[in-house]
């Protein structure tokens, strides 16, 4: 290649053409839409519906790649039974995904690619095009900088959009993304666009007020299983499971059968689950190895610190959702701080 990859520039109208092009190419396009005080990834047909200045959505894009509920297969119970699968995902384009969520998707990609591969997730992922969006602002609950997951990203997207003030910088992150940008006839961006982006990133980096550095945290947390912070924090925890449902790296699910009223056919379903719920770790005859609330809270936080569960795959990307949506104002960065000896 000799030098940096091709860069493009466009204006708001150009972004609208991009969305229309995706839709005419068979993609269902989702983007961050503001409703009330919150943002949601909703189906869009124009950039006008999107808030390019958003902070974070309530649910991460996980809801489209690892949906809250999905059918694994159908079964019929006639003579014995027969099982049929139906994995036919439609093509989806995620428009305007922030760096923390891009990193989370990368981790889920790797997690679900482990042997044996998860065919449902991967089929959906292969049919998904991802258009990232550099953040324009940081709020008091963002801490991607200290997690090494933002505000700058170099992978995890097909195209990355950055608002540089007087236009949009478009960086291809895959062959598919490059092809798409070329096909739209966007002009090449000069160095001033990259410089403007760098300036924005530097400004963003200065605005972080919350931090939870990864260095040594997993080992430290694992060595402090008896620390008082677990029980103290659990005093406030409601075990509602919000933290894990809004977490972009939480992947745990329950599996159950639903039988039709005719008692002859049914479906096996999987549904997002939470280790914060009492039933999650129940075993035969009423046994439960995480019966105490502090054990469930500790397990989830250890998982987010990279010391339990899926390790790095399920560890925290610093999006701040669990803090925003905790009804008991529990903040895992404060717990990490306590473990590090502060407070």
């Amino acid at each position: 290649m000799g030098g940096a990859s091709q860069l493009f520039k466009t204006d708001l109208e150009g972004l609208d053409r991009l969305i229309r092009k995706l839709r005419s190419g068979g993609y269902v396009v989702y983007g961050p839409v503001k409703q009330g005080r919150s943002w949601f990834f909703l189906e869009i047909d124009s950039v006008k519906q999107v808030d390019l200045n958003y902070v974070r959505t309530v649910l991460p894009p996980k809801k489209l790649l690892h949906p809250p509920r999905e059918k694994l297969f159908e079964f019929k119970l006639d003579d014995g039974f027969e099982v049929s699968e139906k994995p036919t995902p439609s093509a989806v384009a995620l428009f305007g995904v922030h760096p923390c969520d891009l990193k989370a998707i990368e981790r889920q990609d790797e997690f679900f690619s482990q042997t044996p591969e998860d065919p449902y997730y991967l089929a959906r992922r292969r049919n998904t095009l991802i258009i990232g969006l550099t953040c324009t602002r940081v709020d008091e609950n963002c801490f991607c900088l200290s997690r090494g997951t933002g505000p700058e990203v170099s992978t995890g997207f097909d195209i990355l959009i950055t608002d540089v003030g007087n236009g949009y910088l478009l960086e291809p992150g895959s062959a598919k993304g490059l092809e798409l940008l070329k096909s739209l006839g966007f002009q090449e961006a000069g160095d001033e666009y990259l410089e403007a982006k760098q300036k924005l990133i530097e400004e963003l980096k200065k605005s972080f007020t919350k931090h939870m550095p990864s260095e040594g945290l997993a080992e430290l947390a694992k060595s402090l299983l008896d620390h008082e912070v677990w029980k103290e924090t659990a005093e406030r925890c409601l075990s509602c499971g919000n933290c894990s449902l809004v977490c972009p790296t939480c992947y745990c699910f329950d599996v159950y059968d639903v039988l039709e009223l005719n008692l002859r056919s049914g479906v096996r379903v999987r549904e997002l689950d939470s280790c914060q719920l009492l039933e999650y770790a129940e075993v035969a005859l009423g046994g439960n190895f995480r019966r105490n609330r502090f054990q469930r809270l500790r397990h989830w936080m250890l998982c987010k610190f990279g010391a339990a569960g899926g390790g790095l795959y399920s560890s925290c990307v610093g999006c701040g959702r669990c803090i925003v949506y905790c009804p008991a104002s529990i903040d895992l960065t404060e717990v990490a701080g306590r473990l590090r000896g502060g407070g």
Partner: protein
Amino acid sequence: MNPYVPRIAVIESIVDETPDIKTFRLRITDGGFSFVPGQFVMVSVLGVGESAISISSHPDDAEKFIEISVRKVGNVTGSLFRLKPGDKVGVRGPFGNGWPVDKAVGKDLLIVGGGCGQGALRPLILDVLRHRDRYGRVEILYGARTPQDLMFKYEHDVWASVPQGCLLLTVDRVPPGVEWKHNVGVVTRLFEHVTVDPANSLVCICGPEIMMHFAVKGLLSMGFKGDQIYLSMERRMKCGVGKCGHCQIGGKYVCKDGPIFTYEELKLEPDKIL
């Protein structure tokens, strides 16, 4: 291949082991099956659900059949108990790692079972019987609640006749009128009769976690090291393939990293009785 879709198996025969444990012999209808001792399968009664159950037969028979020994404890196992020979169930797997049969070659083996944990140990015991020369001295300790709750009673004479080995049985209590010539007390009470050499042996344990806790304690004080003690762990499983998260013990997945762990591997993990 979709790891979530079960294969169809036909129940060929059912043995009543105890008042609440049955052994089901299953024939997989669509071709081959192979496993190693200590692995488990996910057994489906479609419309009810799926449970993780250890395979209790020997791998050499897997082309013809596998057996699972099931205690009736919930919805899925309760439904299994209502099935008859000829009925069909779903089977996924085998999953998990298995007993350290290769590491055990040339070593003494101490096999400690409690309750229906003996189901997961039977493939190992059958391997000793079929390949006696692979192992050194083999001592089998097995405890249950009452004499009626002992599984595989029809095989105990064979287990007990293993050359250079022994079978020691114990029960928690003997109901009035039941004849019992073996020991009474928890399974760790049998440790005083153990003669395998801690320096050159492996221990394989499966039973309720509280029993394994006391067994490990006893074994460590006898001079066994944590990495010689293999434990088959029970945790809830929904997928069996390391995805659903339910079976996590700290950072370990029982379905994928286990179900068999050395005590050394587990001792620092949270949320266990061990």
